């Protein structure tokens, strides 16, 4: 259960606006490639550049992914209209952004956190991304630059903006909301949702109040580039607001940028215009009216969502759903693989640990056949190989893309040691490390490490660490 954040008698109220770039081949309203990392201005067309006479045409795949996001979040998918949001900025080619205003694609959804808390999702709508500005001169930042250069490759890339209700009460909850949302987006194939690369961007609306009071004035925090920073930024901003209020000042509604370096939020110097975006329905586009059949089709194509998959994996492995191994393996999409290993009769919990530890780079369909990993886990469970040997053999399996673990063990000369051999090795270790032995006998458990290490070294890793420990424990008593 995450705890409500409090500070000097205040609590925080946070709503998050998450922008994700959709994993489409082309832009939201034109056929230029939606691709990151190429030379500047190579994915441009009349629509992307806002050339005179250009007209937008809606990308069917973007709409489908948008609805997929909505349905994964339990939203109502509805008839929607695109609207123009008018403002001038050099990376916004038409001086308006095509977005959705009073009739968004998805409304009224929810996202459940691990402790059962439900965060409301107000809406999830489609809109286009902007280009990118590079600021010339000194610091590379806006202020004091000698000018800016604009690349429109990103302009027009489809985004879904997911707006939560102000239901979040702590930095931890905000982090978990974003992590869970990210897991869902990746699982349903809507986006790679990488905050570091900017394919997922999080803005936080933060306000504070004394319990029971109405909502306070909020500030919007931008420029948060990781889940960890998000928590820090929210915490810093809420403290800043509390300090203002307790000093008798008032919070001014504004946009503030998070500075990772000094750990504070800063108001940007801005011109004095109030926002007046003059939204109106874009006359170049027509409404999208989804049929009930289409919505059912999109819904039925949704894969199982991460929370459900974590629960299933946790039951299979006999561990809690929020253990790190379960979270990690589900995030990598390797839960189905673990389940397959288990169908071969192997201990799922051991398989889970191996997959989590060794399969980070192998993707959702590891090249090691599930039956091979199952055989290895069985050898480990039966004591035929030690945990250390099993790790080595797993490396061999990964390198070779599979194989017979028993044959590989034989090649490496891994054989289970008989008890007499092990006892002799332990005796030799005690003789060789008298100081460690004395300390261990005096109750200093840490000293056992040196003794076990000696045995392992002498056996060239073939001894079973657990068996050695057990012998040492019985010898002491």
């Amino acid at each position: 259960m995450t705890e409500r954040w409090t500070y000097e008698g205040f609590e925080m109220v946070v709503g998050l606006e998450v922008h994700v770039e959709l994993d489409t081949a082309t832009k939201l309203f034109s056929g230029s490639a939606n691709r990151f990392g190429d030379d500047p201005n190579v994915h441009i067309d009349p629509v992307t550049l806002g050339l005179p006479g250009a007209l937008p045409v809606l990308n069917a795949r973007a709409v489908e992914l948008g609805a997929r996001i909505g349905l994964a979040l339990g939203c109502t998918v509805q008839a929607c209209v695109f609207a123009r949001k008018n403002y001038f900025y050099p990376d916004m080619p038409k001086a308006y952004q095509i977005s959705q205003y009073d009739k968004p694609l998805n409304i009224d959804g929810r996202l459940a956190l691990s402790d059962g808390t439900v965060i409301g999702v107000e809406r999830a709508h489609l809109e286009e991304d902007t280009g990118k500005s590079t600021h010339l001169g000194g610091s590379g930042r806006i202020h004091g630059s000698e000018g800016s250069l604009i690349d429109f490759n990103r302009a027009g890339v489809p985004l879904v903006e997911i707006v939560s209700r102000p239901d979040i009460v702590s930095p931890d909850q905000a982090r978990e909301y974003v992590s869970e949302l990210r897991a869902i987006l990746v699982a349903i194939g809507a986006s790679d949702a990488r905050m570091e690369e900017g394919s997922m961007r999080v803005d936080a609306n933060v306000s504070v109040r004394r319990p029971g009071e109405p909502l306070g004035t909020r500030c919007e925090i931008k420029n948060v580039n990781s889940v960890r920073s998000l928590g820090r930024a929210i915490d810093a901003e809420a403290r800043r607001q509390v300090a203002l209020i307790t000093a008798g000042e008032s919070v001014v509604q504004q946009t503030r940028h998070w500075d990772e370096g000094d750990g504070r939020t800063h108001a940007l110097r801005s011109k004095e215009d109030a926002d007046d975006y003059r939204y109106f329905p874009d006359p170049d586009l027509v409404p999208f009216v989804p049929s009930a059949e289409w919505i059912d089709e999109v819904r039925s194509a949704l894969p199982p969502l991460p929370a459900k998959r974590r629960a299933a994996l946790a039951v299979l492995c006999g561990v809690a759903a929020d253990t790190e191994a379960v979270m990690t393996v589900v995030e990598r999409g390797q839960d189905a693989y673990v389940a397959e290993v288990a169908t071969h009769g192997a201990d799922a919990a051991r398989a889970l640990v191996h997959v989590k530890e060794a399969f980070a780079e192998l993707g959702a369909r590891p090249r090691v056949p599930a039956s091979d990993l199952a055989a290895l886990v069985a050898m480990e469970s039966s004591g035929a190989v030690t945990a250390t040997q099993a790790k080595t053999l797993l490396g061999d399996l990964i390198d070779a893309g599979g194989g017979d673990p028993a044959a590989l063990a034989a090649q490496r000369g891994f054989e289970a040691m008989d008890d007499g051999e092990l006892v002799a090795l332990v005796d030799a270790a005690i003789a060789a490390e008298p100081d460690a032995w004395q300390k261990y006998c005096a109750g200093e458990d840490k000293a056992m490490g040196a003794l076990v290490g000696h045995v392992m070294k002498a056996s060239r890793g073939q001894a079973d660490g657990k068996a050695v420990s057990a012998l040492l424990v019985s010898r002491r008593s």
Partner: protein
Amino acid sequence: MSTPSTAIGIAAAVRSGSMSAVDAVEQSLERIGASDGDIGAFLTVTASSARDEAAAIDAAVASGSDPGPLAGVPIAIKDNMCTRGIPTTCASRMLDGWLPPYDATVISRLRTAGAVIVGKTNLDEFAMGSSTENSAFGVTKNPHDPTRVPGGSSGGSAAAVAAGFVPVSLGSDTGGSIRQPAGLCGVVGVKPTYGAVSRLGLVAFASSLDQIGPFAGNVADAAVVLEAIAGHDPGDSTSIPEPFGPLGAAVPRGVEGMRVGRITDLPAGADPDVTERFEAAFDALADAGADIVDVEVPAFTYGLTAYYLIAPAEASSNLARYDGVRYGHRVAAPDTDAMYVATRTDGFGAEVKRRILLGTYALSAGYYDAYYGKAQRVRRLIADDFARAYTHADVLLTPTAPTVAFEIGAKSDDPLAMYLCDTYTIPSNLAGHPAMSVPFGTGADGLPVGVQVLAPAVGEATMFAVGAALERAMGAQR
């Protein structure tokens, strides 16, 4: 055999090999060279590319292939349609010298049909005006009287046909910008159903109202050009999938038994000489066998207000892209925001600025419901009223403009007086219906008077039948 002067005549001669496209184009270029100095219809004459294209058409004919229904027909294009590598200025300093990197859909379709573009014509800046006086590059004169305006905003394209420089041309019509200059210049001008002709590559003024259409010396030529440019375009989301039927067959059809509506509550304000010709048109159609019926379109009179809120609102957004960043005019300034203001203040003319201010106001916080929102509802009323009227009538008739061509400068200091020129043409744009102006004799000072035929959406065939009947009636009176 005399040289053909109609589009249909030229195309037939070129396709049969009795006349070369090069000769057709050369004649057009000669006339432009000889007289456009006095008229000012053209902003750019594309003599060199026109000659090359004409030669290619002749080569195609020689090799036995058919260059299309407009083979070798010289055509002029209003300078708000994108032509790759050819200046497209919208008669604005803002786009002076801009070379589009792509062709409008209508341009590709004209080329496919074998037409040859001989130049780009003058207009009111960004198509905002009714006289072609709001051009940054000079006023176009009415070929019937060079002291008078040709109407607008497509004044250059209307004058180019009226002066005989080209048999046909393209204009765009947002509130009457094809029909009103057609009326004032004594040529045929057609605004098709909204969505019948692709807007891709038409520089937007008011996106929900803009529509490209032809000017021609006669109704049949207008039909051929419209057929060449119309049809679904997947590049325009508002392009209608099922276009109107063939128009050529409609032209000779006649109006026997057709119901022609007289709008009894039509706003007053037309001059007596215009009204006289308008009444004569009813008589001519009745003589040709049509039934004249009375209909009411009560919201017609509110069209002007709805239009002058909706069109500037959309324009204020459409013209925001002219910011000096990616193309066109830029005035240097120490920071980007100052550059925007300097560029836009210098690059736009007075009327464009006036409409941007009006439209921005109509959309701004606190005023949206009172202005833009309300205008959208009035628009619905007008469409509903038309729908009711069309249960009683097949077409409606109005004057095209309240007056004949007025003197250059007569209305340039009075925006409202200029806006009133569009009283009769605006409602069709709001409803998205087709309408055409057909010359129907002369009024004061021997200047042309146009009569407007209105039809319901995709009712082009019926409209052309009526337009052609009026044209035949005039021919008989001559």
